[in-house]
């Protein structure tokens, strides 16, 4: 399937959204809640573009709108730029001076003045962390409350019962705002402390005990990737000779 973004022809696969196809073709449309690896949330609204429908332009979210044959997408209109700028200002108010946001602010040359001056947690409520954890089958965290009091948290703000300390949520977070404290003893995330699973051969940290157990159910000994490779090489050598 072929379609165009600002006149540039791009190919898309069945069921692709505008965003899926544009990211694959490396044509940049900003978007902070989108990730090709997690379920979409359509929440940041930074990816708004205009599409031609019945001879008029309609503002849609690129991460939600499915590509059709010969679809015309435009991103250079006044409407798109107005919406994008104001949303970025909102995101800047929520996560001031955050590198991910600053990069976009610079790109679109937006004056750095928060709309609301308040100390913020830097979380932009994109929901990627929730989707990442959900995908692992854990769902230790979710959005809680509604309206302006919405936040990401564990049930009742207590140490997350099902969390295994894998850190995937923090990994996908665009603003890197999930507090994760690692030291020699272990890791603290979502109000919960985890001990390290260390490599039985070399003692290096592999991951948290809970995470290792979750991905290796049969009491497999903890071995780091480096030692595992070395071990495999040894086995190989033993079997086939020098």
């Amino acid at each position: 399937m072929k379609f165009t973004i600002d006149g540039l022809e791009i190919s898309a696969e069945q069921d692709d959204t505008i965003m899926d196809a544009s990211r694959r073709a490396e044509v940049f449309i900003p978007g902070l809640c989108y990730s090709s690896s997690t379920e979409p949330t359509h929440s940041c609204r930074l990816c708004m573009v205009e599409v031609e429908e019945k001879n008029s332009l309609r503002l849609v979210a690129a991460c939600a709108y499915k590509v059709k044959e010969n679809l015309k997408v435009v991103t250079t209109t006044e409407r798109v730029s107005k919406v994008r700028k104001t949303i970025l200002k909102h995101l800047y108010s929520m996560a001031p001076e955050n590198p991910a946001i600053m990069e976009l602010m610079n790109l679109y040359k937006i004056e750095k003045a928060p709309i609301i001056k308040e100390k913020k947690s830097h979380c932009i409520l994109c929901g990627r962390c929730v989707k990442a954890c959900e995908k692992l089958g854990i769902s230790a965290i979710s959005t809680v409350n509604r309206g302006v009091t919405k936040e990401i948290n564990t049930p009742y703000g207590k140490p997350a019962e099902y969390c295994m300390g894998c850190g995937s949520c923090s990994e996908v977070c665009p603003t890197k705002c999930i507090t994760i404290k690692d030291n020699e003893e272990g890791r603290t995330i979502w109000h919960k402390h985890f001990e390290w699973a260390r490599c039985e051969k070399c003692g290096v940290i592999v991951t948290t005990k809970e995470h290792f157990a979750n991905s290796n159910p049969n009491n497999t000994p903890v071995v780091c990737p480096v030692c595992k490779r070395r071990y495999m090489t040894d086995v190989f050598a033993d079997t086939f000779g020098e």
Partner: protein
Amino acid sequence: MTKKILVCCGTGCLANGSQALVDQFYLETKKLDVNIIPQIKETGCNGFCENGPMVTIVPAHITYYKVQPKDVSDILESLDKEPVTRLLYKDDSGKPVTSKEENPFYALQHKIVLRNTGVIDPSCFNDYLEAGGYVGLTKALAMEPIKIIEEVEKSGLRGRGGGGFSTGLKWRSCHEITGEFKYMLCNGDEGDPGAFMDRSIMEGDPHSVLEGLIIGAYAIGSHYGFLYIRDEYGLALKHMQKAIDDAKANGYLGNNILGSGFNFSCEIVRGGGAFVCGESSALMASIEGRVGEPRVKYIRSVEKGLFDSPTVLSNVESLANIPYIMTNGAENFASIGTKGSKGTKVFSLVGNVNRTGLIEVPMGITLRQLIFQIGGGIPNGKKFKAAQTGGPSGGCIPEELLDLEIDFDSLKEKGSIMGSGGIIVMDENTCMVELARYYMKFLTEESCGKCTPCREGLRAMLDILTRICEGKGELSDLDLLEELAYVTSEASLCELGKTAPNPVLSSLKYFRDEYLAHIVDKRCPAGVCPKLIKYEIIPDKCKFCGLCVKVCPVEAITGKPKTPYIINQNKCIRCGNCKSTCAFEAIYVE
């Protein structure tokens, strides 16, 4: 013909003691001669709750207001004589009127949706049948589904849940989709604060909603449905459930309805209570047992709705119109209303107006008729300022537009919306900036908070409006408000966000000078915003009684005998106690 005594037992009248009244009627009619014992009926809401409990005698059509158990004997005695004058309503000239039609509150009303409400006993299946109920369904089941859809399209009925989308067209799109399993849903969530039209319909005439739902299901080819009803609506839930049970027992629901071979069953789902749960995708998420948050809808729910099956969602009032259309024909329905909006609309008329309540009027009635004829004007001789239509995400309509003929399109054109039909009347003592702030506050709490432009846009608009109300606003704030409003309405994920800026935009459009007064002169012209007003004592009027001193919670008022009292502005917290206490009108707001 047996006389009937209709005792209003809607939520409003029950709260005013109509159950005791019913008991008293039963008690006292026992003593009467068996041949003349009138039938006592407990009906749904008559819409004029502030004058309840209401009692209507038929066939004489005499309606009594504010009836107490002690009045029962007089009413019974008068049955064959002159009506009890003291219980009649007095019209604007003070003349007592007997029938509802003569009561100015009812005179301009036209009842289609509320045709049975207040007339029949909603928990009695036979009452509904006798009133012509299920004739529409019987007729429909003998027709091809597509013919029903054509009829509904021809009637011009547009969805009463707020969007105003053609009901027939929506049904047609779903009818045309082939699908094994389709759902027919009824939206009875009614989250607008102060709105109670859908509640009254479900309480007062549940079968009409159910009949509409069954006809819709037959038309689109659905065999299962849900009625999503607000959890707080105890009486509506009870009556709706009774209606479902009775319809099932009598062959109007279930398998092989009326021998037609058509099967349809439905059940009630209790709504969680959040305002946003009334939005269609959030409502479906909620029925599926997920968090009631809206979803992106580039695929229409008529194709992929509840549990990803083709689904039609129609509002309570929309559905209650259907049996009427099927029974009386599309032409009859389409002869009422305006070019683009046919039929009637139920409104809840509240605020600074002499008569408040639930009314049903033809589309195209003017705001002036609504407020000054039905509503009887503004209390205490005050001036009308504006009317908010469409609930929290609607807009205000100013005095110069009082003669606007209201329908879906005219309201939208003027920057407001029909919404579900709330009308709040405001007098000259209303501050429009504070009003916009109030609605933004409501919406920041009720937005689901999922998408940036709605959540953050509302938060920012509330912040700015609060600043303006506190006298800290700047001129540049007006541009910022407009920018935020624009982006919130353009980029939000669901209709809540898209309509949320209406209160701000419409008040800016019609009452910009009031914003300017707050920002430039640091003055609240309506005398409402506490930080911008001052209470002062007029020396010539003060009679040195000292009452104000007693009610001031912060000892801001001082005075000596025989000299006018003085308010210390640094201490005053602008509670207004002194002004309301002064018997000599010596205190004024500036």
